[in-house]
């Protein structure tokens, strides 16, 4: 908690933090409001594939999919937070002042974990409220999506942190993250298409992305494709957790052994 308090002291007066968190929260809520009230549609004319999507139990899954697009705001902040330490050389100063190298990493890890928890709480609260407003069926059904949202967020933010620990420059790290997202999409589709399998879905970010699909798109895909590219959920969870562990051990090794 001491490490988290130290991270908080850095954030509490940092304009960029409040801006990105506000953008994430505000636009996420507005977007869902717009979908709920059919200001935003998927389809043309009177057709709206997203209608009735925010009632129980489908609200958990549908809002989970929408949520997945907004995590980028938080990932950008994680990149800025880590890159700042290298830009200001405060990573060196912390060690000079007596912080253990591993504690420096753990401070950032706790920041990522806290942001993942906070974002998941926002998602959970929003989905529950929208579900209550729209009524529908069993509110408990599909509620495991909350866990998927948390794992997705943690994986995404940890990956962003990994990039910025190595690149050390915020602009380049953000570009690299975006480039990787596009690159991974290509690789996933190439593997799945040419090998007629779902193994491509087990790539680092795709593994947890599979946990937050848009059901209506999956239905369309199932209708139009003869081969299922869906990976089993347990595999997505296993790989997601595994990747997060790999990121941690890579960074742990880097922090303990390399010159700062």
């Amino acid at each position, binding site marked *: 908690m001491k490490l988290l308090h*130290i991270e908080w002291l850095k954030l509490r007066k940092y304009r960029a933090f409040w801006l990105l968190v506000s953008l994430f929260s505000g636009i996420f809520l507005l977007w869902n409001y717009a979908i709920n009230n059919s200001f935003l549609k998927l389809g043309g004319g009177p057709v709206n594939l997203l209608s009735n999507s925010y009632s129980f139990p489908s609200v958990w899954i549908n809002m989970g999919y929408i949520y997945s697009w907004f995590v980028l705001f938080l990932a950008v902040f994680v990149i800025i937070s880590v890159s700042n330490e290298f830009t*200001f*050389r405060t990573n*060196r*100063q912390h060690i000079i*002042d*007596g912080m*253990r*190298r591993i504690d420096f990493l753990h401070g950032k890890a706790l920041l990522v974990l806290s942001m993942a928890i906070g974002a998941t709480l926002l998602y959970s609260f929003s989905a529950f409220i929208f579900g209550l407003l729209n009524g529908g069926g069993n509110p408990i059904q599909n509620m495991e999506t909350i866990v998927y949202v948390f794992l997705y967020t943690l994986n995404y933010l940890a990956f962003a942190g990994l990039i910025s620990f190595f690149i050390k420059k915020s602009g380049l790290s953000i570009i690299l993250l975006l480039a990787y997202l596009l690159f991974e999409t290509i690789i996933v589709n190439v593997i799945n298409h040419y090998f007629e399998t779902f193994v491509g879905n087990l790539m680092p970010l795709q593994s947890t992305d599979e946990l937050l699909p848009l059901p209506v798109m999956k239905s369309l895909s199932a209708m139009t494709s003869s081969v299922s590219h869906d990976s089993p959920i347990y595999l997505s969870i296993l790989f997601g957790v595994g990747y997060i562990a790999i990121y941690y051990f890579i960074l742990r090794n880097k922090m303990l052994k390399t*010159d700062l």
Partner: protein
Amino acid sequence: MSSILSIENIKKSYHVVQALKGVSFEVPKGSVFGVLGPNGSGKTTLLGILLDLLKADSGQFEWIGYPNDFTARKNIGSLLETPNFYHYMTAKDNLILTAHIKERGLEDVDRVLQQVNLYERRDSKFSTFSLGMKQRLAIAGALLGKPDILVLDEPTNGLDPVGISEIRDLIRSLNQEGITVIMASHLLDEVEKVCTHVAILKQGVLLSSGPVSHVSNDEEWIELSASNKQTLANALTNNPLVKSIRVEELIHIVLQPNASIEGINTYCMQQGIVLNHIQKRKRSLESKFMEMTK
């Protein structure tokens, strides 16, 4: 005098460049210990290893009196390279953060800001500070929690003459309170005024270590000049009274143990050389340093 730091055979390379080639010395407790050397001698590398920024290839060091290196570093105030703070945070907020990291000194923030004359600017963002102010804030950070040891790399960097004098006085007063100061500096005149002990490095090798008076050897030298400097230089070169000679704007000689300044003056008169300048000087650390590191 007991030691507070023991360094044993530390080696460090950056690819093909060997920055430290087996450096060993001890820092006496309560001393002001200068680490001197020309650029590339390994001073900053050595301080970086002591503060865990760099990993030595081999060798070891020990902060004596502390259970481990991690605990020792919490009792060390350091100023290494450029001042490293968060640009968007105020001076006070930066020091509060530093105090939390050190786990000490939170009650000291206002005191150290006053000590370095930054109290009036405590609520200004670091990004608005001049270089001198940044340096002073870094010194304030090093002083938080009344450390047992100060490790300073070029502490007067960026300061005007008044600031340099203030740092010199600060180091002296802190040392009188019992704080051990380890200081790397290029300002040899300042080191000679402040330091009690010194280690001289050149290209990663320790050339000399010990009390300043021992290293500078208390040798005296004579400054001479005449209207015909070349004639004077010729007369003094290979002269049995002269141990060494250096010809610059003035001629500098070190006398043999059995020679005297009167003897030199008499010899020159006998040679028909009229001196227009003769001055006895104590061998400074700077001249010894220049001789050792050339």
